[in-house]
Each structure stands twice: as C-alpha cells, then as structure tokens.
C-alpha cells in the first residue's frame, strides 16, 4: 500500500500535460505528474511513484537506495507489476495484446 516506486522521467506527454513517461529498471509507463506541478520538473529527474502518481522529486542516489530497499523488502516484483499494471496512459481503448488477460 505504501509502495513508492522510483522512476526517471523520460519525456512529458505532449497531448496530455498531466502525464509523463517514466522508466523504472527498463519498464516504461505513463504516470500523472499533477502533484509535482509546483516543482521545476525536467526530463531526467527522478520521482517516487505511488498508485500512478509522481509524489516527490528525489535525487538519483535516493532513487537507487529506494530500488534496493524494495528488493530487500521483497517488494520489487510487486512494484514492477504495479507499474506494468498502469493502463491510464495508454489511451482510452488500448487493444489488449494477445495472451494478456483481462484484469
């Protein structure tokens, strides 16, 4: 529940100003960045992600610490599952790839 996943901002969504593409250990998903609108957020910045929202801007060192902590707590797989589970950035009707089951 309190999972916070560190991700790096790859690019901002041009069509939807609320969203940015983040990269977490090679997996890319869009997250909502409304809660960081007071921050001078830039490409390459690290953020902590919680339930689809970037919650805090953090340093690269802290991002690595956090990834390591998730692994130590045995929550790294769960975190990647959560990230891969975000669908809201994929447009309203992303076709489900074959083999992927409905939630």
């Amino acid at each position, binding site marked *: *529940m*309190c999972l916070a996943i560190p991700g790096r901002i790859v690019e901002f969504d041009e069509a939807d100003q609320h969203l940015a593409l983040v990269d977490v250990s090679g997996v890319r998903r869009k997250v909502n960045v409304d809660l960081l609108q*007071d921050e001078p957020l830039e490409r390459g910045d690290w953020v*902590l992600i*919680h339930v689809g929202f970037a919650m805090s801007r953090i340093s690269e060192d802290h991002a690595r610490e956090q990834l390591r902590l998730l692994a130590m*707590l045995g929550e790294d797989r769960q975190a990647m599952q959560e990230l891969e589970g*975000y669908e809201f950035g994929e447009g*309203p*009707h992303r076709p489900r790839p074959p083999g992927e089951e409905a939630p």
Partner: protein
Amino acid sequence: MKYVDEFRDPRLIAQAADEIRRLVDPGRRYRIMEVCGGHTHAIYRFALEDLLPRNVELIHGPGCPVCVLPMGRVDDGLSLTGDPSVIFTTFGDVMRVPGRHGSPLERQAGGADVRMVYSPLDALRLARQNPDRHVVFFAIGFETTAPSTAVTLRAARQVDIPNFSIFCNHVMIVPAIRAILDSPDMRLDAFIGPGHVSTVIGCRPYGFVAREYGKPIVVSGFEPLDLLQSIVMILRQLREGRAEVENQYARVVPWDGNGPALRALAETFDLRPFFEWRGLGFISQSALQVNEAHARWDAERRFPVPGIRVTDPKAAQCGEVLKGVLKPEQCKLFGKECTPERPVGALMVSSEGACAAHYNYGRRRTAVA
C-alpha cells in the same frame, strides 16, 4: 544477525545501535510507536528490534490502511455489486480483506464484477471504456493515497464522466495519533512519524504531539539505518528532556508538505464528523468524504448504502494488537485460525499489518514482560 549482511552499511548500523545503547537509561522502559505500515514491515523484515536494548519497545500502531478499515465498510462497498450495472474496483490490498460475506476476491469468484486496479485513474479509464456500466472505485489509504483519489475526482468532474464514483474510505493519521494519545490504556514515550504520509502533509501537523502531549516525534525514512537514526533522535530528545518534531527523512519530506496534493484534497473532500476505525472505535474528524461540489461522483450519495456495522470476531483481538496492548503472537487466533492464507482479521491481510509481518518474518525476541 540474519539480515545484517544486506544492510547498506553494516558499520553505520552498528554505530547507531551502539549510540542507542549509550542513550538508554537501563532503569527506564521506552515505548515508541510507529504509525506507518511501511515502517512496521521494514522493522520486522530487518529484525530491527533485535538491535535494540530489551527496555526499548516498538509498538506497531494503526499505520496499515486495510487493517484499520472496519469490516462493515467492506460489506457496505461490496453491497453495491448487487446492482448488475456496477463494476467494483479497488486496490490489490483490499481484494483479500474479509467481509461478512467474503472478501472482494471471493465475491469475484462468486460472479460479482469486482476488478483490481493499480491506480484510481485506471478505474476512471474503465468508466470511459464502459459507458453503459457504472464504475465504483473503493478508495482506501492515508494522506499518501488520498491526493491520487482527489486528482481522479477532479478529472472526473472536468471531463464530466457520469458513470464513475468514489466510495471513500480515506483516513488521516493525525487524528488517530491524538486518539491514541488520549486513550487511557496507552502509555507511550514517543512516535516514529510516517514517511510517505509526511511527504504530503509535511511535519507541521505533528506539532501538537510535542506541544500538547510533551512527546517527541521524528519523521523517518524506511531504510534500516533511517529507522535506527530516528530512534537515536528520539532517545536524545528524551534524555535532554525535549519534545519536538524532527525530520530524519528530509531528503524526501518537505517541512510544509506537498502544496498541489494539499490543494487537491481541499478542492474535493470534506472532513467527516466521525469515522469508525477498527480497534480504535469512532474518531471525530478522522476521515474524508467527497465534498458537495463533487457529489455526483460520490458512491455513498448515488447508491443506497446499508451502513453495516459488524463487530469483529470475538476471539480475534485485532483492536488490542492495533493499539499495542497485545503483541500479535498473544492473540488467541494468531497462526492458528488466523494466517495470511486465511486471515480472520485485517492485520493478517497486508504485509504492513503487524500480524502478517510477525507471521512472515517471525520473532527471535520475546516481548519485554
């Protein structure tokens, strides 16, 4: 020490443990409560209590959102699935929480349209994909999670999505801390303040703990070293007779919190006059409800909600464990009728619940009698 090799810097861990031993008065008992489920999980996972002197006791407070949710709220939420147009969505943590007639997962197996989502925005997306259905998002969580629901509500209103609503169970840790401090069977010396909750609310709201109750509170990170350093900071305050709010997790937690998150909460939610917490009873102004401006997206206004109240199974002592009056293993059902595979009480459901954490990682240290 089983996990000590994994610590990032074992030398710093040993130094912090030494400092704790140096600061502790052997003739005194210290009771420190953490009120964040992530802290509870980390404390058990890293067996941090093994590094503490026996007279320093950590009490695992009500920091796990599914653990403090009364069973009646789960039943109230699930009652909406009786309407065949409803798609009931919630986070994975809630899926296994027992209701009187089964958990959301069991109801799903029984044919109800219950779906797990990873973000409230995915529930909103589901509503747009299914205009002939009504999507209810069963929202749960402390101040960490509530802003996400708030932004989702705001989006539902802005884009005007009519077939979406929130069943709001968001609760706030600050009124719970006050209720614990006011509880007569509770004698605590200090608090480890929550990490991610504080990224949203900042450190100021904890001022009353120091000012009115004279107890130190230190907002902490989640690394083993963070938690030990926070305990050092608490013990220093106690030794010097100070009671202050301190921020050990300043690398993430701003003193004033997250402005946009606080504004989103203020725009979409009101305080409920009171709300029931499992184990703590009714606490005034401790939970959020969807405000008037967003009434169309409030499931409790749109659907008849029975308002079910269920007393916890008598034998289960979740309330006592939540308040730290009993240790998990002192509950009669612990590890017998109640296990993570078949939880009777909510403390056994989530990895952040004290019972599940104790069950999963065991304890090599017996409670200080």
